[in-house]
């Protein structure tokens, strides 16, 4: 029998009964209903201690008493005062909103749940009402009439619930006439409750692991070697190519950094194999790092300070290894950190050189501060210069659509390169409807630390808009694969697609690229990187590919 943390537990017709009628009580008088399946477990004390966070203790969301520090109100209000000075954007966002409602129906969680507090405007009001009460004359004098309310423990609980029902995807900000960035409001909200020791474990354990081991999964150097060597064996089975595995190679030209999900999680591992094959074929001088072994940075979901601490390891290892520049893999939120924060957090990275493709000579001048470019920029440039030998027909059984991952899309504006690459490696590509892609893309519902199974109801609700758009192209064009360049997407969209658009598989782009590439000295390609037989490719008996070995591990 399925439990609340499994998709089967939720009946589609029940989830689709979305009640958009607001409750009878005013929003200030409607307390949070902590329903299993809609909230995330608290951060464990041992993880808080690793990174010196305040008030480490064991507690449960269902507890009446969250054992806050004695002077918790002072801590929150002083924290707010500090941030109003330090982050001018926060002050502007607190003062500016005219409650026009343009953002209201743009949030995937509101669309999927109907909960008014998931309207970005009201989510922001949860914080703004406290700001008014303590930091504006109107709020001090007129109180609730001016939209102000006192800071109580119920407010803290409400913040914990709703700031972890926001994936910081920033779709709402695209539609705000003032450009208010609700993600930044959520970030400050999370920082403030963090001062009281309130974190979710799905964020803070990856943070603690990343701080100690360099990646979210606590993979140690010999574990990374074992993992990549295993992939190299599968690569050889599929292609006949023996790939090198350069690790911590001093003096390499390029440091390659990708999310750690690509090392262990299906289907990210096939994209990782794709990286290894691509670099082998190009013969470029690159290295993996066992210290900068995660592009992901869950510090972004914790606090500005934590984001800075975790981002620093990439550049520290780039300097230690003496590389010239950094190439980043198919990661999502890494690119928000790199493009919008890195320069002032830890940059500019003057000890590195402006990224320059060793194959085409193209200089990527836009990365002159961070010295880090996206793999899709690099690959699109290779294809543009006709440097890859591609046989698109190997992907003819695939009918693919592309999910713009929120952060590369909205924080980086990388819309064309991935589509250009996909069109060059697949004959069948269909975009989802216009208002669900590019800068208007819908979130997977599991980003920003929400992708854990105990949050399954909200993930399915939040995944409804994206899932519906996938279903649309599945019905209309026969789409059977969804490509995404983000490890959280590759983990969470599998669940979303299985639930809302069953039959659509999830893939990374580099997996598609490697499956289409013709490698120097390859054997007859009968199986793809998943070791599934490629339709239309004749299988000879003497290929050394037994039926059992080639069987799919996917369900």
């Amino acid at each position, binding site marked *: 029998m399925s439990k609340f943390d499994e998709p089967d537990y939720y009946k589609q017709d029940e989830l689709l009964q979305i009640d958009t009628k607001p409750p009878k009580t005013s929003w200030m008088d409607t307390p949070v209903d902590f329903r299993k399946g809609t909230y995330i477990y608290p951060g464990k004390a041992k993880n808080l201690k690793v990174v010196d966070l305040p008030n480490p203790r*064991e507690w449960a969301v269902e507890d009446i008493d969250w054992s806050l520090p004695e002077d918790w109100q002072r801590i929150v209000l002083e924290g707010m005062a500090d941030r109003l000075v330090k982050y001018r954007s926060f002050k502007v966002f607190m003062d500016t909103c005219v409650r026009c409602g343009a953002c209201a129906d743009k949030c995937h969680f509101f669309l999927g749940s109907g909960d008014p507090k998931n309207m970005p405007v009201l989510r922001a009001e949860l914080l703004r009402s406290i700001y008014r009460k303590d930091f504006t004359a109107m709020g001090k004098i007129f109180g609730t009439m001016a939209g102000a309310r006192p800071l109580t423990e119920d407010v803290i609980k409400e913040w914990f619930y709703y700031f972890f029902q926001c994936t910081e995807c920033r779709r709402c900000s695209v539609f705000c006439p003032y450009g208010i960035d609700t993600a930044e409001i959520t970030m400050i909200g999370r920082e403030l409750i963090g001062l009281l020791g309130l974190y979710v474990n799905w964020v803070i354990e990856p943070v603690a692991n990343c701080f100690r081991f360099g990646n*979210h*999964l606590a993979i140690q150097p010999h574990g990374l070697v*074992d993992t990549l060597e*295993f992939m190299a064996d599968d690569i050889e089975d599929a292609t006949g190519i023996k790939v090198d595995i350069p690790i911590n190679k001093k003096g390499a030209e390029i440091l390659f950094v990708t999310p750690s999900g690509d*090392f262990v999680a299906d289907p990210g591992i096939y994209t990782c194999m794709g990286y290894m094959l691509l670099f082998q074929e190009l013969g470029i001088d690159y290295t993996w790092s066992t210290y900068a072994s995660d592009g992901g940075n869950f510090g972004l979901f914790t606090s500005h300070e934590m984001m800075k601490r975790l981002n620093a390891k990439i550049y520290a290892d780039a300097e230690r290894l003496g590389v010239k520049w950094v190439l980043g893999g198919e990661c999502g939120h890494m690119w928000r950190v790199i493009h919008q924060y890195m320069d002032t957090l830890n940059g500019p990275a003057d000890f590195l050189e402006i990224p320059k493709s060793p194959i085409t000579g193209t200089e990527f001048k836009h990365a002159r501060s961070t010295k880090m470019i996206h793999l899709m920029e690099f690959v699109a440039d290779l294809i543009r210069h006709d440097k890859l030998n591609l046989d698109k027909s190997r992907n003819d059984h695939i009918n693919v659509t592309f999910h713009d991952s929120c952060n590369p899309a909205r924080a980086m504006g990388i819309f064309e390169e991935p589509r250009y690459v996909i069109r060059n490696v697949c004959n069948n590509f269909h975009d989802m409807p216009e208002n669900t892609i590019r800068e208007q893309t819908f979130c997977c519902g599991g980003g920003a630390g929400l992708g854990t199974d*105990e949050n399954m109801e909200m993930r399915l609700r939040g995944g409804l808009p994206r899932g519906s758009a996938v279903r649309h192209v599945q019905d209309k064009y026969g789409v059977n694969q969804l490509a995404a360049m983000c*490890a959280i997407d590759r983990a969470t969209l599998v669940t979303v697609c299985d639930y809302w658009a069953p039959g659509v598989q999830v893939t990374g782009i580099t997996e598609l690229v490697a499956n289409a590439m013709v490698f120097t000295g390859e054997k007859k390609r009968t199986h793809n990187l998943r070791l599934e037989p490629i339709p239309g490719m004749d299988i000879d008996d003497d290929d050394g590919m037994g039926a059992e070995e080639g069987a799919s591990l996917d*369900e």
Partner: protein
Amino acid sequence: MEMVELGGKQMEIDEDGFIQDPDQWDEAVAADLAKTEGVDDLTDNHWKLVHYLRDYYLEYNMAPMIRKLCKQTGFSLKEVYDLFPSGPAKGACKVAGLPKPTGCV
């Protein structure tokens, strides 16, 4: 976090029932953890999987990728689900005393 008795010993488990101190693990603990997963009898095949995971964890401090687990134990993913209905991560890894994986997974 909750304290429960597993394999005749008191130990801490998290919300999903994963034990918190891997050093407390032994076969009696595994047998009791399996019961929480609806597996009352651990057969040789169950133990093969559990010991593989446990040994891998002790050597590498992490769970192997599922693909490697299947290749090295000879079980297909379906067979893993037949043995542990909650699957390799939430079922088999839990019984083998591994922590719950987190991050972009």
